[in-house]
């Protein structure tokens, strides 16, 4: 249950960082904004590591597969790609489309990790997408009513 609450909290944090980063990017540009984020973030986590002083994992450094280091790099690529792609599609669709990619790849990856596709994840994923589609259509109707976007 704790993990479930934490994961939802992760969603809250995602929105907060999107709002802050969008404002920062307006002032200094996307990559400078990202640079500032990583400088501040690195500094904070460096202080935390110094404060906690748990270095028992350091011996594992030699065993880490190279790809595991690429997460940070992919994170920056996601920011760069989002910056080009998201302005080109209606905002109400971006969360939905990104989630479709996430859940599809998530199910594939979980399959490789535990070597079985859970029916619950597929059914659950489809339900979530249907619910999002329904609400997206409500938003779309409202935007059309207010003549903010035109019918396609």
């Amino acid at each position, binding site marked *: 249950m704790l993990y479930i609450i934490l994961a939802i909290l992760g969603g809250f944090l995602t929105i907060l960082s999107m709002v802050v980063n969008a404002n920062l990017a307006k002032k200094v540009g996307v990559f400078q904004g990202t640079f500032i984020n990583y400088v501040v973030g690195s500094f904070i986590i460096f202080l935390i590591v110094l404060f906690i002083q748990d270095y028992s994992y350091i011996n594992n450094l030699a065993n880490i597969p190279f790809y595991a280091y690429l*997460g940070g790099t992919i994170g920056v690529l996601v920011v760069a790609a989002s910056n080009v792609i998201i302005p080109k599609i209606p905002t109400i669709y971006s969360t939905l489309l990104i989630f479709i990619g996430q859940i599809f790849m998530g199910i594939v990856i979980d399959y490789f990790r535990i070597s079985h596709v859970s029916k619950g994840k597929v059914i659950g994923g489809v339900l979530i997408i249907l619910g999002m589609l329904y609400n997206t259509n409500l938003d779309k109707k409202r935007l059309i009513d207010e003549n903010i976007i035109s019918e396609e």
Partner: protein
Amino acid sequence: MYRVYAVFIGILISIMLTFNGVLDGYLGNYLSVLLIHLCGLITVTIILISKRQKIVLNRQVPFYLYSGGAIGVLLVLVNNICFSSLGVALTSSLGVFGQLMLSCVIDHFGIIGMDVYKFEKKKLIGFTIILAGIIVMTIY
């Protein structure tokens, strides 16, 4: 075509969550987040150099905008902790549920300088379906 690219971003995010989670398994919660940030910092520095952009920090940037980095640290930490026990699919689903809820709250009250869009009660139907999906995913 851009819609396909948006789906591709989601695929990248899932791969990223996995790589970060694997690193977390080797290095624990804090050292892994440090390495992830350092790798990201190296990547964005390379991008800045290749675009020949100068790094200017003394512009008029309100202090709270620097908090993005702190939020980022928390976000990676939370995702890494959830990855090992919930897996990628469920972590992503709960995350998107949190995103949708907070977006509705921000829209309804117009917080953080955003325009006010009152919550439509009809949306509860969509949220109920989403919640059902999450419950199915969790208990199966």
